[in-house]
């Protein structure tokens, strides 16, 4: 028996209307039997529309203060410490979620001021993922491994990352690190990259990109981000969309700048500029 094209199309059309074609068949076959079960957010979780930081580095007096915040983040997130590698390799391969750098490197496109306050020029700033409102990394990710959450966090789904590094090319802030080496491995001196694993958080594997996730796992159980907690007020955390939040109050009072604002990515990290006694 053979059918002509007209009969075939009729058959396809009718069966589609009747719901016995295409995905309907597969969905019917794959009944997982778990419909009754459901998921919900943790009642303790902190909810915001757009989480952000205000960084006031005038509150950081010594290198120790910086180190405290960096260590707090990197230790709980099992971020590999590549400091044991030779310098020229470390620069290319190190993994960082939060780090520090000077004014020029933090704000490379800020207008040049001839007789600028030397303290400001030499001061180190905290750098992390800016959790941009218009994130370039999210636009380029071919697998949607990096995406924007409802609360403004630019999230990285390690399960989906294929390590193409488009996001690293797209990010204008250098906030993303590629795992060139197995983070559970050892450096040339036999020192493990992760000194002490936090058993409650995963590591990453070789070949994926990682970055600051604004401590989404801590927000989910009602805790503020780790760096904020130990920063002694140098990093303030809050909802930028909430006019009564602490971050908005600081933004209303103080002069703040963002990194490379001309790119239009709308970073959610603000830096209080001005130091000494003027900084509250």
């Amino acid at each position: 028996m053979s059918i002509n094209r007209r009969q075939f199309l009729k058959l396809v059309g009718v069966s589609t209307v009747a719901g016995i074609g295409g995905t309907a068949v597969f969905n019917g076959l794959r009944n997982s039997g778990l419909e009754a079960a459901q998921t919900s957010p943790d009642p303790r979780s902190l909810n915001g529309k757009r989480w952000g930081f205000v960084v006031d580095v005038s509150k950081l007096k010594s290198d120790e203060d910086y180190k405290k915040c960096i260590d707090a983040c990197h230790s709980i997130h099992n971020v590999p410490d590549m400091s044991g590698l030779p310098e020229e390799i470390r620069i290319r391969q190190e993994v960082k979620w939060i780090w520090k750098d000077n004014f020029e490197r933090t704000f490379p496109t800020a207008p040049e001021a001839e007789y600028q306050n030397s303290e400001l020029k030499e001061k180190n700033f905290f750098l992390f993922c800016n959790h941009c409102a218009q994130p370039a990394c999210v636009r380029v990710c071919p697998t949607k491994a990096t995406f924007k959450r409802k609360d403004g966090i630019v999230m990285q789904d390690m399960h989906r990352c294929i390590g193409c590094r488009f996001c690293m090319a797209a990010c204008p802030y250098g906030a993303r690190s590629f795992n060139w080496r197995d983070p559970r491995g050892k450096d040339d001196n036999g020192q493990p990259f992760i000194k002490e694993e936090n058993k409650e958080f995963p590591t990453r594997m070789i070949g994926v990109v990682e970055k600051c996730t604004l401590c989404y796992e801590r927000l989910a159980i009602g805790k503020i981000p780790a760096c904020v907690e130990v920063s002694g007020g140098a990093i303030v955390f809050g909802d930028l969309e909430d006019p009564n939040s602490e971050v908005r109050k600081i933004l209303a009072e103080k002069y703040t700048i963002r990194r490379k604002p001309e790119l239009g990515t709308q970073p959610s990290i603000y830096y209080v500029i001005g130091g000494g006694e003027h900084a509250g």
Partner: protein
Amino acid sequence: MYNGGKIILGLIVFLAFATFPFYYNIGKVNAKPELKTDTPAIQEWVQKYGKKECIESKEVMRPEHMQILNNWRDSVVRNGDRIYVSSSGKSFSMSLQNTCMNCHSNKKKFCDECHNYMAVTPYCWTCHIAPKENTL
């Protein structure tokens, strides 16, 4: 048939080779995987609630745990929902590393036992940290 004898001999030799693995393994069947659910955390649970129970029944978990883990992953990482309400009404935090492996702290006798038997190698543990076990 030309060269019939040779062809038939060749066929017999071929069949003998092709079926060799089956003959060879007769009577040497691999032991069925025996899962152990006697970890301290599970015993504690039994004392508290009077019975062994996972998030869902054994009959659901056995064929569906990989689907459930996939759903959990998407729910937690992509939607931020971390609480799973099971069909028995109990709530669990959706975490492989902190919930599943808290009870099933015997990965070698629980996960690996079946996975090795079935020759599947899920790549959970390249990132998620497996519980510390005494190697017996």
